[in-house]
Protein backbone atom coordinates (compact mmCIF):
# COMPACT_ATOMS: atom_id res chain seq x y z
CA UNK A 1 0.00 0.00 0.00
CA UNK A 2 1.17 3.43 -0.83
CA UNK A 3 1.10 4.87 2.65
CA UNK A 4 3.72 7.51 2.06
CA UNK A 5 1.86 9.94 -0.14
CA UNK A 6 -1.59 9.41 1.33
CA UNK A 7 -3.25 12.29 3.07
CA UNK A 8 -2.97 12.03 6.84
CA UNK A 9 -5.26 13.37 9.49
CA UNK A 10 -5.50 13.32 13.26
CA UNK A 11 -9.16 13.18 14.19
CA UNK A 12 -10.05 15.18 17.28
CA UNK A 13 -12.80 14.20 19.67
CA UNK A 14 -16.19 15.50 18.49
CA UNK A 15 -14.89 15.77 14.93
CA UNK A 16 -15.98 13.86 11.87
CA UNK A 17 -14.25 13.11 8.60
CA UNK A 18 -15.44 11.74 5.29
CA UNK A 19 -13.89 12.37 1.92
CA UNK A 20 -13.38 10.89 -1.51
CA UNK A 21 -9.65 11.35 -1.25
CA UNK A 22 -8.00 8.29 0.32
CA UNK A 23 -6.91 9.34 3.79
CA UNK A 24 -5.21 7.79 6.78
CA UNK A 25 -7.08 8.91 9.83
CA UNK A 26 -5.60 8.42 13.27
CA UNK A 27 -7.52 8.83 16.46
CA UNK A 28 -7.18 7.91 20.12
CA UNK A 29 -10.12 6.47 22.00
CA UNK A 30 -10.78 5.99 25.68
CA UNK A 31 -14.44 5.80 26.57
CA UNK A 32 -15.17 7.50 23.26
CA UNK A 33 -16.31 5.44 20.31
CA UNK A 34 -15.38 5.73 16.65
CA UNK A 35 -17.65 4.39 13.97
CA UNK A 36 -15.85 3.80 10.67
CA UNK A 37 -18.18 3.62 7.71
CA UNK A 38 -16.87 2.69 4.34
CA UNK A 39 -18.13 1.77 0.96
CA UNK A 40 -16.03 -0.98 -0.66
CA UNK A 41 -17.65 -0.37 -4.04
CA UNK A 42 -16.74 3.29 -4.33
CA UNK A 43 -13.74 2.89 -2.04
CA UNK A 44 -14.62 5.86 0.09
CA UNK A 45 -15.06 6.07 3.80
CA UNK A 46 -15.41 8.20 6.85
CA UNK A 47 -14.96 8.12 10.59
CA UNK A 48 -16.34 9.90 13.63
CA UNK A 49 -15.24 10.14 17.25
CA UNK A 50 -18.00 10.74 19.72
CA UNK A 51 -17.76 11.27 23.44
CA UNK A 52 -21.32 10.89 24.68
CA UNK A 53 -24.16 8.71 23.42
CA UNK A 54 -27.02 11.15 22.91
CA UNK A 55 -27.51 14.83 22.29
CA UNK A 56 -29.76 16.07 25.06
CA UNK A 57 -30.57 19.42 23.53
CA UNK A 58 -27.71 21.13 25.34
CA UNK A 59 -25.17 23.23 23.53
CA UNK A 60 -24.73 22.69 19.82
CA UNK A 61 -25.94 19.60 17.97
CA UNK A 62 -22.39 18.49 17.25
CA UNK A 63 -20.85 15.08 16.49
CA UNK A 64 -19.66 15.07 20.08
CA UNK A 65 -22.83 13.02 20.53
CA UNK A 66 -23.21 9.52 19.08
CA UNK A 67 -26.68 9.89 17.60
CA UNK A 68 -25.64 13.01 15.71
CA UNK A 69 -22.17 11.74 14.80
CA UNK A 70 -23.51 8.54 13.22
CA UNK A 71 -26.33 10.25 11.38
CA UNK A 72 -24.02 12.93 10.00
CA UNK A 73 -21.32 10.48 8.96
CA UNK A 74 -23.83 8.38 7.06
CA UNK A 75 -25.38 11.38 5.35
CA UNK A 76 -21.93 12.59 4.28
CA UNK A 77 -21.14 9.23 2.69
CA UNK A 78 -24.48 9.30 0.89
CA UNK A 79 -23.70 12.82 -0.31
CA UNK A 80 -20.37 11.57 -1.62
CA UNK A 81 -22.32 9.13 -3.75
CA UNK A 82 -22.31 5.92 -1.73
CA UNK A 83 -25.32 3.68 -1.75
CA UNK A 84 -26.53 2.76 1.68
CA UNK A 85 -26.70 -0.94 0.86
CA UNK A 86 -22.96 -0.98 0.13
CA UNK A 87 -21.89 0.68 3.34
CA UNK A 88 -20.23 -1.36 6.06
CA UNK A 89 -19.28 -0.40 9.59
CA UNK A 90 -16.48 -1.06 12.05
CA UNK A 91 -16.65 0.16 15.61
CA UNK A 92 -13.92 0.79 18.15
CA UNK A 93 -13.47 2.17 21.63
CA UNK A 94 -15.84 2.49 24.56
CA UNK A 95 -13.32 1.30 27.12
CA UNK A 96 -13.97 1.81 30.81
CA UNK A 97 -11.00 4.06 31.29
CA UNK A 98 -11.43 6.21 34.33
CA UNK A 99 -12.72 9.56 33.32
CA UNK A 100 -13.53 11.79 36.23
CA UNK A 101 -15.04 14.42 34.01
CA UNK A 102 -18.00 12.21 33.24
CA UNK A 103 -20.12 11.59 36.28
CA UNK A 104 -21.62 8.46 34.80
CA UNK A 105 -19.19 5.62 34.90
CA UNK A 106 -20.58 3.39 32.21
CA UNK A 107 -20.18 6.02 29.53
CA UNK A 108 -18.09 3.67 27.38
CA UNK A 109 -20.72 0.95 27.45
CA UNK A 110 -23.44 3.44 26.57
CA UNK A 111 -21.40 4.76 23.68
CA UNK A 112 -20.97 1.22 22.33
CA UNK A 113 -24.66 0.53 22.82
CA UNK A 114 -25.79 3.58 20.83
CA UNK A 115 -23.41 2.72 17.98
CA UNK A 116 -24.65 -0.86 17.74
CA UNK A 117 -28.31 0.05 18.08
CA UNK A 118 -28.19 2.80 15.52
CA UNK A 119 -26.24 0.77 12.99
CA UNK A 120 -28.66 -2.13 13.43
CA UNK A 121 -31.62 0.19 12.94
CA UNK A 122 -29.98 1.58 9.83
CA UNK A 123 -29.33 -1.96 8.55
CA UNK A 124 -25.62 -1.29 8.24
CA UNK A 125 -23.62 -4.45 8.96
CA UNK A 126 -20.92 -4.20 11.63
CA UNK A 127 -18.16 -6.24 10.06
CA UNK A 128 -15.54 -5.69 12.73
CA UNK A 129 -15.33 -4.36 16.23
CA UNK A 130 -13.05 -3.99 19.18
CA UNK A 131 -14.98 -2.44 21.99
CA UNK A 132 -15.10 -2.31 25.77
CA UNK A 133 -12.39 -3.54 28.05
CA UNK A 134 -10.34 -1.36 30.32
CA UNK A 135 -7.87 0.06 27.84
CA UNK A 136 -7.73 2.90 25.43
CA UNK A 137 -7.12 2.37 21.75
CA UNK A 138 -5.20 4.06 19.01
CA UNK A 139 -6.64 3.38 15.61
CA UNK A 140 -5.51 4.11 12.10
CA UNK A 141 -8.27 4.03 9.51
CA UNK A 142 -7.66 3.84 5.77
CA UNK A 143 -10.64 5.56 4.24
CA UNK A 144 -10.35 3.82 0.85
CA UNK A 145 -9.87 0.19 1.89
CA UNK A 146 -11.66 0.43 5.20
CA UNK A 147 -8.71 -1.25 6.86
CA UNK A 148 -8.23 -0.41 10.52
CA UNK A 149 -4.99 -0.93 12.40
CA UNK A 150 -5.41 -0.85 16.12
CA UNK A 151 -3.19 -0.76 19.13
CA UNK A 152 -4.18 -0.81 22.78
CA UNK A 153 -2.87 1.97 24.92
CA UNK A 154 -2.64 1.86 28.69
CA UNK A 155 -1.01 -0.49 31.13
CA UNK A 156 -3.11 -3.58 31.62
CA UNK A 157 -3.39 -6.53 29.29
CA UNK A 158 -6.39 -6.24 27.00
CA UNK A 159 -9.55 -8.09 27.97
CA UNK A 160 -11.94 -6.94 25.35
CA UNK A 161 -14.78 -8.40 23.40
CA UNK A 162 -13.27 -8.68 19.97
CA UNK A 163 -14.66 -10.23 16.86
CA UNK A 164 -13.54 -9.78 13.30
Amino acid sequence: MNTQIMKKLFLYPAALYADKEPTQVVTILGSCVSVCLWDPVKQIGGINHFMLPLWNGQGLASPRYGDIAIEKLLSQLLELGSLKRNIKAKIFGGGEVLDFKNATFNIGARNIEIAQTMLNDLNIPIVARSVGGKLGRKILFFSDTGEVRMKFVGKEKPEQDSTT
Partner: protein
Amino acid sequence: MNREQITDEFLLSELRKRFQEKEQAINELESMTQELKNVNTKLKESEQLKSHFIANINNEIINPFASVLGLSRSILDVKANDWEKVKYMAKLIFVEAHNLDFQLKNIFAAAEIEAGRVYPQISNVNVVQVIKGVVEDFENDLNAKRLTVEVFNETGLADKGTFYFKTDSEKFKLIMSNLISNAIKFSKGSNIEVRVSLETKDLVVAVKDYGIGISENNKKIIFDRFTRIDTGINSVNRGHGLGLSVVKAFIDLFNGDIKIESLMGKGTTFTVIIPEPDSTQNIDGYSAEGNEIFFDDDMEVF
Protein backbone atom coordinates in the same frame (compact mmCIF):
# COMPACT_ATOMS: atom_id res chain seq x y z
CA MET B 1 -30.54 -28.49 60.52
CA ASN B 2 -27.60 -26.26 60.45
CA ARG B 3 -27.82 -26.00 56.75
CA GLU B 4 -31.50 -24.98 56.86
CA GLN B 5 -30.83 -22.13 59.30
CA ILE B 6 -28.17 -20.78 57.05
CA THR B 7 -30.52 -21.13 54.14
CA ASP B 8 -33.24 -19.12 55.90
CA GLU B 9 -30.93 -16.29 56.73
CA PHE B 10 -29.46 -16.46 53.34
CA LEU B 11 -32.90 -16.38 51.76
CA LEU B 12 -33.98 -13.37 53.78
CA SER B 13 -30.91 -11.37 52.99
CA GLU B 14 -31.13 -12.42 49.39
CA LEU B 15 -34.76 -11.31 49.26
CA ARG B 16 -33.90 -7.98 50.83
CA LYS B 17 -31.08 -7.52 48.40
CA ARG B 18 -33.32 -8.25 45.45
CA PHE B 19 -35.99 -5.87 46.67
CA GLN B 20 -33.38 -3.20 47.02
CA GLU B 21 -32.08 -3.88 43.57
CA LYS B 22 -35.56 -3.70 42.14
CA GLU B 23 -36.27 -0.46 43.95
CA GLN B 24 -33.06 0.96 42.63
CA ALA B 25 -33.92 -0.14 39.12
CA ILE B 26 -37.32 1.51 39.40
CA ASN B 27 -35.74 4.70 40.67
CA GLU B 28 -33.26 4.69 37.85
CA LEU B 29 -36.02 4.09 35.35
CA GLU B 30 -38.04 6.95 36.79
CA SER B 31 -35.15 9.36 36.55
CA MET B 32 -34.43 8.14 33.03
CA THR B 33 -38.05 8.77 32.04
CA GLN B 34 -37.87 12.21 33.55
CA GLU B 35 -34.68 12.89 31.66
CA LEU B 36 -36.28 11.71 28.44
CA LYS B 37 -39.22 14.02 29.00
CA ASN B 38 -36.87 16.92 29.53
CA VAL B 39 -34.93 16.07 26.41
CA ASN B 40 -38.13 15.86 24.44
CA THR B 41 -39.26 19.34 25.47
CA LYS B 42 -35.79 20.65 24.78
CA LEU B 43 -35.75 19.20 21.28
CA LYS B 44 -39.15 20.71 20.57
CA GLU B 45 -37.94 24.06 21.83
CA SER B 46 -34.80 23.74 19.79
CA GLU B 47 -36.86 23.30 16.63
CA GLN B 48 -38.93 26.38 17.45
CA LEU B 49 -35.84 28.39 18.21
CA LYS B 50 -34.35 27.34 14.92
CA SER B 51 -37.26 28.79 12.98
CA HIS B 52 -37.05 31.89 15.14
CA PHE B 53 -33.38 32.08 14.23
CA ILE B 54 -34.08 32.02 10.52
CA ALA B 55 -36.67 34.76 10.92
CA ASN B 56 -34.10 36.75 12.86
CA ILE B 57 -31.55 36.60 10.09
CA ASN B 58 -33.40 39.49 8.51
CA ASN B 59 -32.75 41.84 11.39
CA GLU B 60 -29.30 40.61 12.10
CA ILE B 61 -27.80 40.43 8.65
CA ILE B 62 -29.91 42.05 5.97
CA ASN B 63 -30.44 45.27 7.89
CA PRO B 64 -26.79 45.93 8.74
CA PHE B 65 -25.95 45.19 5.12
CA ALA B 66 -28.52 47.72 3.99
CA SER B 67 -26.89 50.32 6.27
CA VAL B 68 -23.42 49.53 4.95
CA LEU B 69 -24.64 49.86 1.39
CA GLY B 70 -26.54 53.07 2.06
CA LEU B 71 -23.67 54.66 3.97
CA SER B 72 -21.06 53.82 1.40
CA ARG B 73 -23.26 55.27 -1.32
CA SER B 74 -23.57 58.46 0.70
CA ILE B 75 -19.79 58.63 1.04
CA LEU B 76 -19.49 58.46 -2.72
CA ASP B 77 -21.79 61.47 -2.97
CA VAL B 78 -19.95 63.57 -0.40
CA LYS B 79 -18.60 66.87 -1.73
CA ALA B 80 -14.83 67.26 -1.82
CA ASN B 81 -13.09 68.32 1.41
CA ASP B 82 -15.93 67.30 3.68
CA TRP B 83 -13.67 64.91 5.57
CA GLU B 84 -15.51 65.08 8.82
CA LYS B 85 -18.66 63.75 7.21
CA VAL B 86 -16.75 60.93 5.49
CA LYS B 87 -15.03 60.01 8.70
CA TYR B 88 -18.29 59.93 10.58
CA MET B 89 -19.94 57.69 8.01
CA ALA B 90 -16.91 55.45 7.72
CA LYS B 91 -17.11 54.94 11.46
CA LEU B 92 -20.76 53.94 11.18
CA ILE B 93 -19.83 51.51 8.41
CA PHE B 94 -17.10 50.06 10.59
CA VAL B 95 -19.53 49.50 13.44
CA GLU B 96 -22.08 47.76 11.21
CA ALA B 97 -19.42 45.73 9.43
CA HIS B 98 -17.76 44.69 12.66
CA ASN B 99 -21.07 43.56 14.01
CA LEU B 100 -21.83 41.62 10.85
CA ASP B 101 -18.40 40.02 10.92
CA PHE B 102 -18.88 39.00 14.53
CA GLN B 103 -22.34 37.53 13.90
CA LEU B 104 -21.19 35.67 10.80
CA LYS B 105 -18.13 34.28 12.61
CA ASN B 106 -20.43 32.84 15.25
CA ILE B 107 -22.79 31.39 12.67
CA PHE B 108 -19.97 29.78 10.69
CA ALA B 109 -18.27 28.54 13.85
CA ALA B 110 -21.51 26.93 14.99
CA ALA B 111 -22.02 25.37 11.56
CA GLU B 112 -18.49 23.98 11.55
CA ILE B 113 -18.81 22.61 15.05
CA GLU B 114 -22.08 20.93 14.13
CA ALA B 115 -20.46 19.48 11.01
CA GLY B 116 -17.55 18.13 13.08
CA ARG B 117 -14.98 20.10 11.14
CA VAL B 118 -13.33 22.00 13.96
CA TYR B 119 -9.65 21.56 14.66
CA PRO B 120 -7.51 23.56 17.02
CA GLN B 121 -4.62 25.34 15.34
CA ILE B 122 -2.22 25.84 18.16
CA SER B 123 0.34 28.58 18.16
CA ASN B 124 1.97 30.85 20.69
CA VAL B 125 -0.62 33.54 21.31
CA ASN B 126 -0.25 36.79 23.21
CA VAL B 127 -3.55 36.45 25.01
CA VAL B 128 -3.40 39.89 26.63
CA GLN B 129 -2.98 41.50 23.27
CA VAL B 130 -5.82 39.46 21.76
CA ILE B 131 -8.11 40.56 24.59
CA LYS B 132 -7.11 44.20 24.17
CA GLY B 133 -7.76 43.91 20.44
CA VAL B 134 -11.24 42.54 21.11
CA VAL B 135 -11.95 45.41 23.51
CA GLU B 136 -10.88 47.88 20.82
CA ASP B 137 -13.22 46.26 18.32
CA PHE B 138 -16.13 46.87 20.66
CA GLU B 139 -15.09 50.44 21.36
CA ASN B 140 -18.23 51.82 19.84
CA ASP B 141 -20.61 49.68 21.90
CA LEU B 142 -18.58 50.58 24.97
CA ASN B 143 -18.80 54.30 24.25
CA ALA B 144 -22.52 54.03 23.59
CA LYS B 145 -23.04 52.57 27.08
CA ARG B 146 -20.29 54.69 28.65
CA LEU B 147 -18.43 51.58 29.72
CA THR B 148 -14.77 50.80 30.01
CA VAL B 149 -13.08 47.45 30.03
CA GLU B 150 -10.11 47.02 32.31
CA VAL B 151 -7.71 44.24 31.47
CA PHE B 152 -5.61 42.93 34.35
CA ASN B 153 -2.62 40.78 33.66
CA GLU B 154 -2.24 38.79 36.87
CA THR B 155 0.29 36.30 35.61
CA GLY B 156 3.02 38.01 37.59
CA LEU B 157 4.96 38.96 34.52
CA ALA B 158 6.78 42.27 34.55
CA ASP B 159 5.48 43.22 31.12
CA LYS B 160 1.75 43.69 31.67
CA GLY B 161 1.05 43.90 27.98
CA THR B 162 2.13 40.41 27.09
CA PHE B 163 1.34 36.92 28.15
CA TYR B 164 2.02 34.11 25.73
CA PHE B 165 0.02 30.91 25.87
CA LYS B 166 -0.22 28.02 23.43
CA THR B 167 -3.73 28.06 22.04
CA ASP B 168 -5.77 28.64 18.91
CA SER B 169 -5.72 32.38 18.41
CA GLU B 170 -8.84 32.65 16.20
CA LYS B 171 -10.94 30.50 18.49
CA PHE B 172 -9.64 32.19 21.61
CA LYS B 173 -10.49 35.53 20.06
CA LEU B 174 -14.04 34.45 19.29
CA ILE B 175 -14.45 33.15 22.85
CA MET B 176 -13.32 36.50 24.22
CA SER B 177 -15.43 38.47 21.74
CA ASN B 178 -18.52 36.62 22.84
CA LEU B 179 -17.84 36.97 26.55
CA ILE B 180 -16.99 40.65 26.27
CA SER B 181 -19.92 41.36 23.95
CA ASN B 182 -22.18 39.64 26.46
CA ALA B 183 -20.75 41.59 29.35
CA ILE B 184 -21.36 44.83 27.44
CA LYS B 185 -24.94 43.84 26.63
CA PHE B 186 -25.89 43.12 30.20
CA SER B 187 -23.83 45.77 31.98
CA LYS B 188 -25.63 48.47 33.89
CA GLY B 189 -23.34 51.43 33.85
CA SER B 190 -20.09 50.41 35.40
CA ASN B 191 -16.91 48.98 34.09
CA ILE B 192 -16.09 45.47 32.97
CA GLU B 193 -13.06 43.65 34.32
CA VAL B 194 -11.06 41.02 32.50
CA ARG B 195 -8.47 39.17 34.54
CA VAL B 196 -5.85 36.95 32.97
CA SER B 197 -3.96 34.56 35.21
CA LEU B 198 -2.11 31.29 35.16
CA GLU B 199 -3.09 28.52 37.56
CA THR B 200 -0.93 25.40 37.49
CA LYS B 201 -0.27 25.74 33.79
CA ASP B 202 -3.92 26.48 32.96
CA LEU B 203 -4.84 29.78 31.40
CA VAL B 204 -7.62 31.38 33.43
CA VAL B 205 -9.55 34.33 32.06
CA ALA B 206 -12.35 35.87 34.09
CA VAL B 207 -14.76 38.37 32.55
CA LYS B 208 -16.71 40.24 35.19
CA ASP B 209 -19.60 42.61 34.61
CA TYR B 210 -21.70 44.57 37.08
CA GLY B 211 -24.90 43.96 35.21
CA ILE B 212 -28.32 42.42 35.68
CA GLY B 213 -27.06 38.91 36.52
CA ILE B 214 -28.25 35.52 35.38
CA SER B 215 -30.89 33.48 37.19
CA GLU B 216 -30.23 29.89 38.24
CA ASN B 217 -32.69 28.65 35.61
CA ASN B 218 -31.05 30.62 32.86
CA LYS B 219 -27.63 29.34 33.88
CA LYS B 220 -28.76 25.90 32.77
CA ILE B 221 -29.78 26.94 29.28
CA ILE B 222 -27.33 29.70 28.58
CA PHE B 223 -25.02 27.48 26.53
CA ASP B 224 -27.81 25.98 24.43
CA ARG B 225 -28.01 27.12 20.87
CA PHE B 226 -30.40 29.88 19.83
CA THR B 227 -31.06 30.71 23.44
CA ARG B 228 -31.44 34.38 24.18
CA ILE B 229 -32.14 35.40 27.69
CA ASP B 230 -33.44 38.73 26.55
CA THR B 231 -35.99 38.05 23.83
CA GLY B 232 -38.57 40.70 24.53
CA ILE B 233 -39.85 42.83 21.69
CA ASN B 234 -38.15 45.84 23.23
CA SER B 235 -34.85 44.05 23.39
CA VAL B 236 -32.11 46.40 22.34
CA ASN B 237 -29.61 43.61 22.22
CA ARG B 238 -28.73 41.91 19.03
CA GLY B 239 -27.52 38.42 18.50
CA HIS B 240 -28.65 34.95 17.60
CA GLY B 241 -28.06 33.18 20.83
CA LEU B 242 -25.27 31.21 19.21
CA GLY B 243 -22.35 32.98 20.85
CA LEU B 244 -22.21 31.15 24.16
CA SER B 245 -22.88 27.77 22.58
CA VAL B 246 -19.87 28.39 20.36
CA VAL B 247 -17.84 29.42 23.42
CA LYS B 248 -18.77 26.21 25.19
CA ALA B 249 -17.95 24.02 22.19
CA PHE B 250 -14.54 25.66 21.68
CA ILE B 251 -13.72 25.27 25.36
CA ASP B 252 -14.69 21.59 25.13
CA LEU B 253 -12.36 21.32 22.17
CA PHE B 254 -9.56 22.74 24.30
CA ASN B 255 -10.48 20.29 27.07
CA GLY B 256 -11.16 23.29 29.26
CA ASP B 257 -13.98 24.48 31.44
CA ILE B 258 -16.23 27.50 31.84
CA LYS B 259 -17.83 28.61 35.08
CA ILE B 260 -20.54 31.16 35.79
CA GLU B 261 -20.88 33.04 39.04
CA SER B 262 -23.79 35.37 39.15
CA LEU B 263 -25.87 37.37 41.55
CA MET B 264 -29.13 38.84 40.32
CA GLY B 265 -28.78 42.58 40.05
CA LYS B 266 -25.12 42.49 41.01
CA GLY B 267 -23.40 41.07 37.99
CA THR B 268 -21.88 38.00 36.45
CA THR B 269 -18.43 36.52 36.13
CA PHE B 270 -17.63 34.06 33.39
CA THR B 271 -14.40 32.19 34.10
CA VAL B 272 -12.72 30.32 31.30
CA ILE B 273 -10.08 27.73 32.10
CA ILE B 274 -7.96 26.45 29.25
CA PRO B 275 -5.31 23.82 29.94
CA GLU B 276 -1.99 23.86 28.16
CA PRO B 277 -2.53 21.80 24.99
CA ASP B 278 -0.01 19.07 25.73
CA SER B 279 -0.58 18.78 29.43
CA THR B 280 -3.68 16.65 29.03
CA GLN B 281 -3.02 13.17 30.32
CA ASN B 282 -6.58 12.18 29.64
CA ILE B 283 -6.69 9.46 27.05
CA ASP B 284 -9.59 11.13 25.30
CA GLY B 285 -7.57 14.27 25.29
CA TYR B 286 -5.61 15.14 22.32
CA SER B 287 -2.37 16.49 21.14
CA ALA B 288 -1.71 16.90 17.50
CA GLU B 289 1.99 16.81 18.15
CA GLY B 290 3.45 13.53 19.22
CA ASN B 291 0.63 11.58 17.70
CA GLU B 292 2.62 10.23 14.81
CA ILE B 293 1.68 6.81 15.92
CA PHE B 294 3.93 3.88 15.38
CA PHE B 295 1.90 0.89 14.44
CA ASP B 296 4.34 -1.94 14.94
CA ASP B 297 4.04 -5.68 15.52
CA ASP B 298 1.84 -5.04 18.50
CA MET B 299 -1.09 -3.93 16.42
CA GLU B 300 -4.23 -5.69 15.31
CA VAL B 301 -5.71 -5.31 11.88
CA PHE B 302 -9.45 -5.14 11.27
